[in-house]
């Protein structure tokens, strides 16, 4: 699975979120083949190359188009909370779309 995390600048929050998501998903048994972090402005252009986009909640509306195309977009409130990431993944379509190892 290819994941992208995005925040305003692409250098702080998105990087922290990428670590949390990658660690949590691998622990849950998903195979992450690619993980990148970037800014909101860039993310809109490259989101199509990823299976799931994670972003902090204030930015989630920026990804309406990705959602319309059927892409998974997940908003996270606390970027260091493994528990929140895990819960949000389980609530999403990820468990049915992707199989675990």
């Amino acid at each position, binding site marked *: 699975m290819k994941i992208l995390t995005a925040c*305003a600048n*692409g*250098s702080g929050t998105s990087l922290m979120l990428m670590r949390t998501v990658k660690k949590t998903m691998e622990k849950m048994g998903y195979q992450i083949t690619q993980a990148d972090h970037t800014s909101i402005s860039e993310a809109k252009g490259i989101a199509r190359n990823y299976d799931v986009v994670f972003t902090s909640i*204030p*930015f989630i509306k920026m990804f309406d188009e990705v959602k319309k195309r059927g892409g998974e977009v997940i908003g996270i409130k606390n970027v*260091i*909370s493994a528990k929140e990431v895990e819960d949000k993944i389980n609530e999403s379509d990820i468990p049915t779309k992707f199989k675990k190892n």
Partner: protein
Amino acid sequence: MLRYFLENHLINISTEHPQNWEDAIRVSGEIMKSNNLVTDKYVDQVIADVKKYGPYIVIVPGVAMPHSQADSSGVLGTGIGLTIFPEAVSFDKDDSEKDAQLFFMLAAKDNKQHMENIANLSNMLMEDGLIEDLRKVKSLEDYHQVMDKYELSTEESR
């Protein structure tokens, strides 16, 4: 990581409460400027970003991570500076979850070093009870005590 702030003179325990969040970001820029990590230009950008995007830099209740574009010309070096205020600072009067008392300002010139810093910072913030303990710090002595308490369990950097 707690030791990193101390050893690199990147800790500021402020005894004065800032007037508002903007002032708090300016104060947290001081320790970065005195270490030649950023210039005022960067601090201005951080403030402009918050005005534009909202208080997204408050990453967990109580903790702000002020930062702006990594390629800004106001960034001179790579590092994280910690400023602790006596009380929480409000970013959004309608949302107390966006109050912050610990300000970790980021500067990222060297990407690899920055990745390591962020990894260490997130590991540190994930330690149970650490954020609460740091929020109670009023002096360097207090800070040393917190450091002693978490020393064994935190990964060291640098």
